[in-house]
């Protein structure tokens, strides 16, 4: 669906409101980059590697997955594969966003980096193009700035505190994954898929190399997606899910 280019009467006021809300989301999301930075160096990555992940990978769930798999003793290849699988949802967000934002080729190559949960949530609900663009750009840039600054702080602090297990940072990783999963658990089918994935993963832990159980659990998503008949549009997080609510 392409949006109209016409501006509504109250645009300056609406624009101010969208910018304010988007920056609030950026600040709220950006700050938890601190936890990514701390967890990443605890998993054995250097401060430089940690900061590069936030700059170039720039998608929270994939970043946490990469360092989580490594922390659990998985191979770098298994970590990268898990991160890429989680990155596929941004492809689907991009499909939804492209006609809304209506940007040309070269602009797309730069704004693509900003396609994440938060920027998608703050733009797909708008009813005209200028609002969708400003919501997407302001949120994307605010999250990018906050997330990268906070990652550096978390990594530098994490680097100086010694054995992460003493501070329970290994437990923080599981909590981070649960917090990322939480908004999706309202749906019944998602709950069943989650339970199936947990069963597959835990069942495989004693018999496979670390990193394999998580990738194998992705098979549950494949199976459920192929067998399910329900027609539904791509699930996009609501502004509530990315705001201060979590």
């Amino acid at each position, binding site marked *: 669906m392409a949006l109209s280019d016409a501006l509504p009467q109250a645009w300056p006021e609406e624009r101010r409101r969208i910018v304010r809300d988007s920056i609030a989301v950026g600040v*709220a999301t950006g*700050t938890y980059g601190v*936890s990514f930075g701390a967890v990443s160096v605890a998993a054995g990555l250097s401060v430089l590697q940690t900061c590069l*992940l936030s700059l170039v*990978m720039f*998608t929270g*769930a994939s970043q946490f*997955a990469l360092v989580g798999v*490594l*922390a*659990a003793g998985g191979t*770098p*290849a298994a970590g*990268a594969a898990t991160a*890429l699988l*989680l*990155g596929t*949802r*941004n*492809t689907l967000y*991009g*499909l939804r966003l*492209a006609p809304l*934002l209506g940007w040309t080729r070269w602009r797309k*190559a730069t704004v*693509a*980096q900003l396609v994440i949960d938060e920027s998608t949530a703050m733009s797909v609900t708008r009813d005209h193009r200028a609002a969708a663009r400003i919501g997407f750009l302001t949120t994307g840039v605010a999250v990018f700035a906050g997330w990268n600054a906070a990652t550096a702080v978390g990594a530098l602090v994490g680097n100086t505190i010694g054995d992460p*297990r*003493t*501070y*329970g940072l*290994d*437990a*923080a990783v*599981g*909590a981070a*994954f*649960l*917090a990322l*999963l*939480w908004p*999706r*658990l309202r749906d019944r089918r998602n709950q069943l*898929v*989650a339970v199936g*994935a947990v069963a597959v*993963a*835990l069942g495989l*832990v*004693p018999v496979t190399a670390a990193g394999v*159980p*998580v990738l194998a*659990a992705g098979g*549950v*998503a494949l199976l459920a*997606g192929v067998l399910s008949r*329900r027609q*539904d549009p791509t699930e996009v997080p609501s502004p509530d899910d990315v705001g*201060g609510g*979590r």
Partner: protein
Amino acid sequence: MTLWGAVIVGSLGCYLLKLAGVSVPSRVLDHPVIERVADLIPVALLAALVAVQVFAGQGRLELDARAAGLAFAVVALLFRAPFLVVVFGAAVVAGLLRLWWG
């Protein structure tokens, strides 16, 4: 693959996945099964990551202070606590348990 390999391949790959989404004509990927699988992948992987992160260690299942951290996270999420409270609260709970019981 080395650690650096994972950082570089994972990062560039994630960018290309984003670029593909805003670049390819929507009919290429616009299929109900692809859409459903793509929606379910984060659910399955994140759930598996929670389980493995909390209950796995050295090729076997373990129940330790991490489980208490997860229990804290569940309660905090039920009360709609902010992300940082959920994550660092879980760490504090697990850290304190280890302090008390070695």
